[in-house]
């Protein structure tokens, strides 16, 4: 049973707070992805767990052991680096064997285990090669092998796929996920790529500026973002946002976006009582929750086609309304000319409303 528990973890570099009071529990055998933009502190968290950085405050448990003051080698975790960090003077075999060599394991045992791991990763034919003779994907597997051989309590992976080309990355994504499930080793995986996070994770912990934004299954984060940051970060293309404020007209209260007025009673649940007229909110809607019509339609908003981004299986249509650009997902068959007039309808049940000041999701 290896769970990893972070309690009030804080790490500063000079005046910069890289990780701010992070609480996180990674369950046994779970594939947890730490997601966030560059500089959000996700790699720092990983390095604190590995023992490569010393936290300023808080506690780190690997299994039931408090590892705060333990050196990396006593934490029994293995790490895969973004650069792979394969020792250039050693063959793939020697690289994989290294963790056992420094433990002074018996040669026969080393040989047996290296071969088993190589077999598992299908790299038996590469064992005699030096790192510079390996392709990106092969080097990646050797690096994984070096992590696997110790049979550690947990895997820490720091953007391990980011140096691979797009095709191989998609392939390795599935491979890695399957391997993790087969081995049942608790894994923390750091990435800035939300597609990687969504496709691989059991749960995603989203970080921004050292602060945990939300933790949950990929679907939860997508469907129920807890704040503006999560809503904007998860999803490709991202959610469309429009600033709006409360207005009163004919004794009725509306959310006014400038291009669209939504009667508040439809959204009452999300807006706490006691809000004043003029108070500001942000309205959000995902690209797939807007439909386009070429003919004028009641309650639809008029815009003009700004550009089309065909993706093969679908097309992303950029629509300009006033100064705002909306991104909308359409079927691949959708055709329109740039500059053409078009009408947008929002799926009202999919509209999200956020508090502009705090960013909290209200609806």
């Amino acid at each position, binding site marked *: 049973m290896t769970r990893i528990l972070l309690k009030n973890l804080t790490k500063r570099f000079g005046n910069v707070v890289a990780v701010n009071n992070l609480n996180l529990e990674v369950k046994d055998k779970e594939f947890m992805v730490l997601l966030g933009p560059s500089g959000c502190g996700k790699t720092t968290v990983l390095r604190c767990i590995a023992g490569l950085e010393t936290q300023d405050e808080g506690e780190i448990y690997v299994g039931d052991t408090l590892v705060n003051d333990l050196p990396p*080698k006593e934490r029994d975790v293995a790490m895969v680096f973004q650069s*792979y*960090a394969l*020792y*250039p003077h050693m063959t793939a075999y020697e690289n994989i064997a*290294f*963790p056992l060599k*420094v433990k002074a394991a018996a040669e026969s045992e080393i040989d047996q285990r290296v071969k088993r791991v190589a077999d598992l990763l299908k790299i038996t034919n590469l064992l005699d090669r030096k790192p*510079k003779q390996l392709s*990106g994907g092969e080097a990646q597997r050797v690096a994984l092998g070096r992590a696997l051989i110790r049979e550690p309590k947990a895997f820490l992976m720091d953007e391990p796929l980011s140096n691979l080309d797009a095709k191989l990355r998609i392939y390795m994504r599935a491979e890695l996920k399957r391997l993790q499930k087969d081995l049942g080793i608790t894994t923390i995986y750091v990435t800035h790529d939300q597609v990687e996070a969504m496709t691989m994770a059991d749960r995603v912990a989203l970080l921004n500026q050292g602060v945990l934004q939300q933790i949950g299954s990929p679907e939860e984060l997508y469907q129920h973002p807890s704040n503006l940051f999560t809503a904007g970060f998860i999803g490709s293309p991202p959610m469309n946002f429009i600033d709006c404020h409360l207005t009163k007209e004919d004794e009725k209260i509306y959310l006014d976006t400038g291009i669209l007025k939504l009667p508040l009673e439809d959204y009452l649940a999300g807006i706490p009582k006691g809000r004043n007229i003029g108070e500001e909110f942000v309205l959000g809607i995902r690209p797939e929750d807007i439909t386009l019509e070429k003919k004028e339609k009641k309650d639809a908003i008029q815009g003009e086609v700004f550009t089309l981004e065909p993706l093969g299986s679908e097309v992303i249509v950029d629509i300009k309304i006033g100064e705002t650009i909306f991104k909308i997902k359409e079927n691949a068959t959708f055709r329109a000319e740039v500059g053409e007039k078009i009408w947008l309808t929002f799926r009202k049940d999919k509209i999200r409303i956020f508090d502009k000041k705090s960013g909290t999701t209200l609806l």
Partner: protein
Amino acid sequence: MKIRINKKLLMVFTTFIAIVIVVMLVFPIYVIIISSFSPKTSVFQPFEFIPREITLKVYNDVLFGPMSRFVPRLVNSLIVSLLSLAITLILVIPSAYAFSRFKFVGRNSLLYGYFAFNQFAGGMGLAGLIALYAILNYFNLLNSLVILALIYASGGVPFNTWLLKTYFDTIPKDFDEAALVDGASYLDIMFKVLLPIAKPGIATVAVFTFMGSWSEFIIAQTILLSDENYTLPLELNQLLASPATNWNVFAATSLLYAIPVIVMYLFAQRYLQAGLAMGGVKR
């Protein structure tokens, strides 16, 4: 068309200059080589571009002759150079590793101290030499090959530490960290991971140190008092200083003296190639 002629002329001119420079550089070496194979004690009376007579007698005399001092001097030179090389590597490798990888109290002051030492030590010249002589004399340490090796090593340690530290700095820390997580100790990291990667840097330090000790004259002249402790540069000087210099003997000794340097260079050349650190990390 005009420009093309000018270009051609320029090429002819620069080639001519290059040839002149090469001849100027190679000519003395050529003279030394033909002298060493000449039975005559002086090649200049009269000078022969292509010698009429070639003999290996001089080499035989220098190496095996009854009067030969070459072999014992060679042994002295090798003792001093290899010892100073060993001392340098033992001191420089761990300190360069520490300077490159760890933060400790006084790290920067020490580094700048080393730098300052490099700048001033050479400039002290004669005063330093006299002081060195006085100190060694006081402690009765003159005329010792071991002491000479220690002086050579200590003189080179600051510069070589800087040099190797700079090389270690270019090796990504990912290697250290990967090894650390893999369960390696700091000694493991130094010996099993960084040293093999740093071979080019270490080879550079080794070549510098060996060549420095091998060719040093002034300090050796100052502290080595008796003939039997003389190193090869002092021997060469003696050959020159004798009233009737045998130029062919001097030439043969010079060429033999150069052989270890060439061997050392050829040996180190394999490692003097950069790029060994590439391949393990993707950037």
